[in-house]
């Protein structure tokens, strides 16, 4: 391997580590920053909200793990990696955590209005598990991408339908942030599974994602009274 290629790989790994670390830290700050509020109130909405960001953080951890392995091994397709750990287990865990993160965030919005005798959140875990297993077994990331698009679309529809009934003034800025979060999350999935999908715009893409998570983190820290 020549020096230029080595340098390129090292730069890729370094930027990936920094990017993922920043996002993971934001997610963990959100999770631990809301711990006291949840411990005092035991309010389910807060529980689902903070757990959503814990799952986002874990998903980003496995995402960075996969990205670094791809760069290191000079491979381009995740599901084509020969190793069971990197080609099956790591993508499976990433898919599971990322699906459940989106489901939990949507559920944190709608749980009050979506009454059911059964515990809906268990369905979310089951759905995320099935999506991940099917995607990995079929070796087809499109299944995972399309199901996540469906989840996000249904989630947004459900949120607007349920919130339409509320007479309280809506927080439009929050909806825009979440819309951007979901949109960039889909782009993250494509970036992971489609080789060089956003290569020329990688840095701008990363900065946008960091901006979204920092905005949510800032709002959280302002409301809990840390800032």
């Amino acid at each position: 391997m020549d020096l230029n290629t080595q340098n390129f790989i090292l730069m890729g790994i370094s930027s990936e580590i920094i990017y993922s670390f920043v996002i993971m830290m934001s997610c963990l700050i959100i999770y631990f920053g809301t711990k006291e509020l949840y411990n005092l109130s035991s309010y389910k909405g807060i529980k689902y909200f903070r757990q959503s960001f814990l799952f986002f953080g874990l998903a980003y951890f496995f995402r960075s793990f996969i990205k670094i392995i791809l760069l290191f091994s000079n491979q381009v397709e995740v599901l084509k990696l020969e190793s069971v750990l990197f080609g099956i287990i790591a993508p499976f865990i990433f898919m599971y955590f990322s699906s459940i993160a989106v489901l939990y965030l949507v559920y944190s919005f709608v749980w009050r209005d979506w009454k059911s005798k059964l515990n809906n959140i268990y369905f979310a875990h089951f759905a995320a598990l099935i999506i991940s297993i099917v995607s990995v077994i079929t070796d087809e990331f499109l299944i995972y991408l399309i199901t996540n698009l469906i989840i996000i679309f249904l989630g947004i529809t459900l949120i607007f339908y349920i919130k339409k009934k509320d007479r309280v003034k809506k927080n439009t800025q929050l909806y825009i942030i979440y819309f951007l979060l979901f949109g960039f999350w889909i782009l993250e999935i494509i970036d992971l599974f489609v080789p060089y999908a956003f290569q020329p715009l990688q840095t701008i893409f990363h900065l946008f994602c960091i901006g979204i998570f920092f905005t949510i983190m800032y709002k959280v820290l302002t409301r809990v009274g840390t800032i």
Partner: protein
Amino acid sequence: MQKRNKLEIIKDLLKIIQDNKNSIKITPLIRKSNLSSQRFSEYFDELTKKGFIKKQIIKDKGFIALTEKGIKYLEKYNSIINFINEFEL
């Protein structure tokens, strides 16, 4: 009168205790809480279980007092509500 949610009822109960110099007998607490005896009993058990209140014996009489956690809840109540409203949880 607008229906109170659970967090607000807990805050009101703890506030009653706090306003009574952090020591109140159970009967006046039930009276001031504006809850049925069944609902009061449920909330009382929950507050005890969560560690927001404690029972004190003063001169052979039972009193209810706030714990540190109960005081913390009152301090953080506005933050909790603002957070829930901000993120529409």
